[in-house]
């Protein structure tokens, strides 16, 4: 019997991966303390992973029952280019955050991503990014005092210089 809703592209692979992942976790949970006791540290992990295996199996069975004919396409409806580009951009941002620092990395990330997603002028994206980064920096670094990696920007010196300006103005 086939259910009405067709199978989405990649759904079978994902659900199969869930079952295999759950089986691996079940095996790993068994390794914690085996069937030593109902109050053993591995008891709850063993039950939760067993539940995952059973549910994963049922989900996979339902997926197999679905019709494979669908108008959806993997590259359009599941993993369109903007999603891939965005994931890679976040990864690149995370990698560059420490060596380059928060300010330049955030500016480049926003300019690149806004420019790509919105299209049009890169200059406009750069101006928008500059304003947004300045606002985020002001709110989170100065007001909330959240520590961000300074990287290549001599942030401490800049903050000290700004503070000295205000201190000078106050006297």
């Amino acid at each position, binding site marked *: 019997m086939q259910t009405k809703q067709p199978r989405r592209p990649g759904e079978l692979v994902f659900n199969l991966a869930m079952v295999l992942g759950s089986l691996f976790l079940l095996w790993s949970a068994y390794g914690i303390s085996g069937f030593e006791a109902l109050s053993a540290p591995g008891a709850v992990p063993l039950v939760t992973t067993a539940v995952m295996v059973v549910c994963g199996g049922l989900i996979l069975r339902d997926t197999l029952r679905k019709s494979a004919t669908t108008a959806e396409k993997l590259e359009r409806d599941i993993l369109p280019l903007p*999603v891939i580009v965005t994931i890679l951009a976040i990864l690149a941002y*995370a990698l560059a955050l420490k060596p380059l620092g928060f300010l330049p990395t955030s500016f480049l990330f*926003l300019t690149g991503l806004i420019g790509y997603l919105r299209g049009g002028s890169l200059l406009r994206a750069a101006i928008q990014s500059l304003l947004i980064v300045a606002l985020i920096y002001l709110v989170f670094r100065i007001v909330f005092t959240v520590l*961000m990696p300074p990287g290549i920007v001599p942030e401490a010196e800049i903050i000290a210089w700004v503070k000295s300006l205000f201190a000078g103005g106050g006297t």
Partner: protein
Amino acid sequence: MEIIQNLLIPVLDLQLLSLIALGTFAGIYVGAIPGLSVTMAVSILISFTFSWDVYPALALMIGIYMGGVYGGSRTAILLNIPGAPAAIATALDGYPMAQKGLAGEAIGVVTVVSFIGGFIGILALAIFAPLLADFAIRFQPRDYFLLGVLGILLVGSLSGESLVKGIFAGALGVGLGSVGMDPLTFTERFTFGTDGLRAGVSFVAVMIGMFGISEGLMQLHTLNSPVIKQKIGRIVPSWPLVRKHLPLGMQTSSIGTVIGALPGTGGDIAALIAYDHATRVTKNPEVPFGKGAVEGLVAPETANNAAVSGAFIPMLTLGIPGDAVTAIMIGALFIHGLNPGPMLMVDQPDMFWFIVSSLALANCFMLIFGLTGIRAFVKIVEMPRAVLLPVILLLSVVGAYAVSNSLTDVYWMLGFGVFGYFMKLYGYPLGPVILGVILSRLLDDNWRRAIISDQESLWMLLKGTLMSPLSAVLFFSVVLIFVSKTPLWGMIFRKRAA
């Protein structure tokens, strides 16, 4: 006297008052802008406020929560896009009203009734939570265990397309929550011999990934959807109009409070049930439901705002979150060294009354901000998503980094973000994952306590459960949820209906 003193904490402290106002104001925008969610905002906020004192951190989060649930209705009315799941029912009649040029009136009605609903919810929280906490002190470990299971099952069964996927997601969350060293025996669990996993997976990284990154990636699918512009007329509703719908509003506020107080259910479910209630009790609406009936706005909006305070009842008295946002707030309280549950009311009653008072203030600010600045609001909501989404993603990365100044958390966040994105695409609900992570410790500890006290005997545990009225009710509720989703149940009820 002590209660009044505690209630006055946020009222007399200008910083706390400002944070509640700021949070409510920001929450209205967060809730209203499609692509931003209250859950996402609160989860990102934890990472920025974890070094603060608990009062200011909570004040800001409560403001965002209260404002956000209300804010979702704005875009539901103006754009037919509910800014939050709790506003889905509001769009059914709100948007038809806007199409008739009554957007201002619809927003005005929604603001006033949200205030009424919010107020009734807060009143219920103040009255019933202390009573429940007194009762909850007598709860046995098995009751907590069953409550935790019930919460995950309820979220799983109501928030996704299938109960099985909900249970899978909940079990995954419990599994994630047990990664690291077992606190009782110091046995390693799911660490695979790596040092990085001994301290467990960062709860904040999981949360930001699942609610910030995955939601951001999902929004990329609808990046170019056109923005519908609306004209705004009269905003403040007339008193006769409010008075006319007050009885319905009182009924649906009560529904909202009760639904919100059930572990695992939130404003979205409360709003839908209240809408259904309104369609049944309103015999002759001036305008039919679905075509711009005012009753169709009153019911869901009173209910979803009442549910906000309702959700705090199980959170503060039992340590069980009422919905995803209160699950995150429990995380925030843990981070601040507090332990929500019946003993919180005994050990730190100031915290409870502070929350009640903050909710009441946020409700008042919601009324003020709700009835002002709507024309400016319309402009901001029209901000292109291509600009908004990169900012959300940037804040998510910075938020995950800020927790422990570690890039490892950023990679976890990204991993969970991508994983959560695929889960959403294939119909797995994410709420139970977070609830599972939060409740993992409670489930594990109470299961072990319960089974040890019953001498490691499943039979004795079952016997004890069936002998205690509370345990029995909880046990049969869990069983009922399971059975109600089986094909057999469907067959029986179809036959009866036929």
